[in-house]
């Protein structure tokens, strides 16, 4: 596998992932509302995907479905992709939950496809601690690494664009990103944030 090959602008799947994956995963993990019919009438339920892996897996499947619809000509490309993708992703999440739980609600209707921006209540102390750790980590990087981090992981620039902006080769940018990732895992593991890893 060529780790450098999946840049936005090099192929349609990568472009879709870069444009929408983060939001899809966030919505699935934050929770979304759906309406189900029961013997007591219509009830609103919130479904949340707890696991990052599970949310990303659903996201991958949703993107694969959208791409297939695009290639089959069943999706009108003049329409925005985001709501269509979000509806597919939330339906998939519900379907996977039903398959796992072996129960079948009688109807699934999304309330205008709008997600509920809920999820666990933010904890100011935890967030402050995490922010301090991130600042410590970034402070340990050298100037070049910080520049690559800011352009790629923070701003979402492609490796090619970051290379152009910094006067580096694309391979240099890629290798710097690997160094940053490796250092980050080591940094957070040493501070107990990867206990289960």
């Amino acid at each position, binding site marked *: *596998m*060529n780790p450098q090959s999946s840049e936005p602008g090099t192929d349609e799947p990568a472009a879709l992932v870069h444009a929408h994956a*983060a939001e899809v995963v966030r919505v699935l993990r934050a929770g979304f509302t759906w309406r189900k019919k029961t013997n007591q009438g219509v009830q609103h339920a919130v479904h949340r995907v707890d*696991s990052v*892996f599970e949310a990303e897996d659903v996201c*991958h499947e949703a993107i694969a479905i959208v791409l297939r619809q695009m290639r089959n000509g069943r999706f009108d490309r003049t329409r925005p992709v985001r709501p269509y993708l979000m509806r597919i992703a939330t339906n998939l999440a519900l379907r996977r939950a039903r398959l796992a739980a072996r129960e079948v609600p009688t109807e699934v209707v999304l309330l205008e496809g709008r997600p509920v921006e809920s999820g666990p209540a933010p904890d100011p102390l935890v967030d402050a601690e995490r922010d301090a750790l991130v600042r410590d980590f970034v402070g340990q990087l050298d100037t070049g690494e910080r520049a690559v981090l800011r352009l790629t992981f*923070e701003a979402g620039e492609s490796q090619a664009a970051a290379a152009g902006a910094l006067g580096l080769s694309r391979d240099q940018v890629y290798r710097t990103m690997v160094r940053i*990732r490796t250092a*980050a895992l080591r940094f957070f593991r040493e501070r107990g944030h990867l206990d*289960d890893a």
Partner: protein
Amino acid sequence: MTHDDCRALLGRHFTEGDLSGLQQQAMRSHLRGCGDCRTAFDAHAEAEANLGPHAAAERMAREHAHWRPPAEPGRLKRRLLTFGTAGLLAAGLAFALGRTASAPPPADDEVRARGGVSGPDAMAWVALHRQRGDAMEPLGRTMAPDDALLVAYTNRAESTATFLAVAARDAAGHIHWLYPAWEDPAAAPKSVSIAQGVADEELPDAVMPRPPAGPLEICALFTRAPLDVPKVDAALEKGGEWPAAEAIDCHMVRVEP
């Protein structure tokens, strides 16, 4: 895949990001069924999120090329080789003509590369995996008769081969064609077209050759021109050698019930 294997792949996946497609799929298969390792994945993802809002998208864009949906009954496209047609026709003809049965593969079960260039200078080779339910693992020295086999090829940029055929010779000397598919005895399939300058490119189907117990020699034939499968098959069924090719990568396994 063991938990340790999965954790080792997770570390590489979140740093170098250089897992092959089959490695990613094997890891993902394991993660779908293992809560502990999924928790480890989540912990890596949470740490990665601290790098910035686009760090996960960069990794997911790399993953997507090799992502496959979870296996559900009937979802994985599998091909059962209709060995009974092509192989039996050839065997029956040989019997009718009074010829002896073709020679079985040698008992030697070491991996061999024949023809072309082998070792570190090899221009092309294959990696074989077997699939059992949701699990996928590298094909070792043994396999079960109902294992599904998956093939991923590497064809270096300097290679002159642009076609690939993969076939197996069983203990009775009969040939099973994995690629191309040969399901209609009246058809005349040819080698599949392959790309150059690629690594670990997976061929699409999981194939169940259902060979009999005993040694099975699986050979990948990399050629400049497509092979005429029925013609090659006829020669092999008579006990002939594998045809000349730019590169031949053979793997010996033992089929055990």
